[in-house]
């Protein structure tokens, strides 16, 4: 069948099962926007391309399907560099289609030309510059294959205008249905080595103080159910990193919650005192380990990862298992179920863990009606008045940590945040993408005032496209996390962290973007505002919660310190 490159591109996306594109057109990508009119694919027109990128990420986090972005050349492409990097660090499957100047003009500094593949090389899993129209269908197939297999990640396809422009003879191609991918250098291993599985099982059987250290890879591998089986079979406690919140239910008796810089005392300390860490799809990130030479010094390591380069990158494992997490965990479950879980008595360890949980729960000083609103209290009230499967997307800062700490995640894929890159402005577009992917679920963005001002314009997109997300703005009128560091580590010298209390007027701004908006100044107004927000179903809602500015996130491992030097909240410090 004869086609032009633009039609072939859209057809190839349809064949990949793409149901939505997040994007914004411009000169170089114009020819591809024309066939979108005749396609069944929904296009969501964003207000800034960064928003499109984070929407695609939110969509992918929530659904497990790759998010797709389409933007023009030059500034359109550079505007998605941040989301690409974000997706790269958090292993989010995503495909970005960028327009490019005509092939013959590449290298001439043509209007809106930039070296997109060069710029994005280090922030993508792979990228392509397509030279011929005939290569479009195969390249799209390859892009989706790479984005979604092995360790997932973002893949960018740069499309010169002439090969998609129906007026240009270079765009003509013969469509065939049987294109095959041709990637001789790409074949991710997914099967676990049975010898390594037995070796890991032996370590598990012998361990006195084992901990399952669970990272985002569990979610990417759709392995939450397998994890639960492994934990329940062995009775081993689970910590879920920032990227893995929800992979194991917070209410489960074996769940210790989040480890790391702002993890809770028990999760951090259990890892420190452990004699066996079973790392599943986790990468020993510095935010989890603290000072590396002081991290879990007595622990042997079993490390399961699908990316060989993670095995031994930071901490040398005693048993390395190169595998998809689900495959490896299922194999471990079979091995332990058939050959026994070992007879080590872990009673003493369990009572130590219980003791930490009793003595050092997450805590903050509560306030009474009429007083300031504590941000943690807002999260607790939201948690208690929304369905269990509500999706929460957060920005980056103190509010992110409180959301992760005080929410109770009961289901996988209900927590969406920017972990590796820590991108302020992530939450609103990510929440929009998640809601597009899961229209039947309630989606709340927990945002900070600094973050909100970076991507709030996407609420216009949400209104116009009828994507009814809800935003809880924890407005402390500060770049709060930076303020906290200046208070604790820079002798209370506050440099460039104060955001105005009066401008913008968030309520008026949100209303001008078509949202229902409320402002909440005191604790007794919180419940009613949340109830009102939960009832809105036809447009986005924003609640401006005026929260205590001086509140700090605890516990905290100061940057560069060992996890053994965790600071708990001031009210618990005398017990430490």
């Amino acid at each position, binding site marked *: 069948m004869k086609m032009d490159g633009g039609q072939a591109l859209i057809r190839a996306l349809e064949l990949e099962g793409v149901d939505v594109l997040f994007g914004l057109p411009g000169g170089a990508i114009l020819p591809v926007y024309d066939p979108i009119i005749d396609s069944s694919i929904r296009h969501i027109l964003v207000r800034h391309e960064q928003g499109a990128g984070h929407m695609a990420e939110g969509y992918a986090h929530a659904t497990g399907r790759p998010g797709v972005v389409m933007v023009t050349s030059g500034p359109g492409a550079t505007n998605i560099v941040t989301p690409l990097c974000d997706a790269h660090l958090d292993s989010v499957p995503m495909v970005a289609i960028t327009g490019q100047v005509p092939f013959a003009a590449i290298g001439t500094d043509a209007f809106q030309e930039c070296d997109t593949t*060069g710029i994005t090389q280090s922030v993508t899993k792979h990228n392509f510059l397509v030279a011929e129209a005939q290569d479009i269908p195969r390249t799209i197939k390859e892009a989706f294959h790479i984005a979604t297999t092995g360790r997932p990640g973002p893949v960018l396809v740069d499309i010169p205008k002439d090969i998609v422009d129906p007026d240009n003879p270079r765009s003509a191609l013969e469509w065939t249905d049987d294109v095959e991918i041709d990637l001789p*250098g*790409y074949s991710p291993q997914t099967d676990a080595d049975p010898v390594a599985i037995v070796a890991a099982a032996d370590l598990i059987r012998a361990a006195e103080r084992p901990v399952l250290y669970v990272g985002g890879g569990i979610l990417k591998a759709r392995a939450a159910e397998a994890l639960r089986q492994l934990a329940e079979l062995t009775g081993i406690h689970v910590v879920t990193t920032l990227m893995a919140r929800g992979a194991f239910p917070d209410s489960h008796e074996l769940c210790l919650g989040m480890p790391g810089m702002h993890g809770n005392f028990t999760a951090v300390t259990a890892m420190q005192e452990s004699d066996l860490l079973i790392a599943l799809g986790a990468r020993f990130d510095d935010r989890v380990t603290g000072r590396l030479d002081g991290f879990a010094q007595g622990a042997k390591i079993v490390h399961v990862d699908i990316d060989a*380069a993670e095995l031994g*990158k930071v901490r040398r494992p005693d048993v390395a298992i190169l595998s998809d997490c689900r495959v490896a965990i299922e194999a471990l479950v079979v091995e332990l179920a058939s050959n026994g879980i070992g007879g080590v008595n872990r009673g003493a360890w369990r009572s130590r863990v219980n003791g930490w949980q009793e003595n050092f729960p997450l805590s903050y000083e509560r306030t009474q009606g009429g007083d300031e609103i504590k941000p943690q209290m807002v999260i607790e009230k939201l948690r208690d008045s929304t369905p269990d499967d509500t999706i929460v997307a957060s920005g980056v800062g103190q509010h992110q940590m409180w959301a992760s700490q005080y929410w109770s995640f009961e289901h996988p894929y209900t927590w969406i945040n920017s972990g590796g890159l820590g991108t302020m402005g992530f939450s609103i577009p990510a929440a929009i993408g998640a809601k597009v992917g899961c229209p039947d679920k309630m989606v709340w963005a927990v945002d900070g005032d600094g973050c909100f001002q970076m991507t709030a314009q996407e609420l216009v997109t949400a209104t116009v496209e009828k994507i009814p997300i809800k935003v809880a703005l924890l407005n402390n009128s500060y770049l709060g996390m930076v303020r906290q560091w200046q208070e604790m580590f820079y002798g209370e010298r506050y440099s460039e962290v104060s955001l105005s209390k009066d401008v913008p007027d968030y309520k008026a701004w949100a209303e001008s973007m078509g949202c229902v908006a409320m402002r909440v100044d005191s604790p007794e107004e919180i419940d009613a505002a949340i109830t009102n927000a939960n009832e809105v179903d036809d447009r986005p809602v924003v609640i401006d919660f005026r929260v205590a500015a001086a509140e700090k996130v605890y516990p905290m491992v100061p940057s560069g310190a060992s996890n053994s030097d965790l600071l708990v909240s001031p009210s618990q410090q005398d017990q430490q």
Partner: protein
Amino acid sequence: MNEQSGSGSAGQHRVADYRYHTLVVTVENKSGVLARLSALFSRRGFNIESLAVAPTDDERFSRVTVVVDLESAPLEQIIKQLDKLVNVVNIRELHPGHAVERELMIVTVSAGPDRRDELVEQLDRAGGKVLSVGADAMMLSLVGPPARIDEFEELLRQYGIIELQRTGRVALANLDEDD
């Protein structure tokens, strides 16, 4: 019979202490692949000592011989990260003691008529060739294990090196040492 490999003649030279290691990387012959390799090296802080690229007998692939500095990163990480590049098809690690390594040097040295005989004699002993003779200078070439090239370069200093170009090493595994 194999010629002596790099480490065989290197004695106390840098190849022998294994700070440097040779990787033979087969890559897809596509535009931008070399940029991906070098971007990876710089982004991850892997230092490279030399890099040589050429097509192979199969036109779909090129072969990159890269000498990596193991003081900058562990070999295992370097190989694993390289392997993640989609265009990298195969990586062979050549242990310095088990490979034939060669490098080509062409060099112009100042040598008037009075010193030519002596220079040519030394060149003959090293197995090099005279490429061109000028009034006060000679252009020479030498192929050999990198360590021998190092030694010869050192020796030429007393004459005065006007211009020098080395290719970086290429390597193949010794015969009968493959698994």
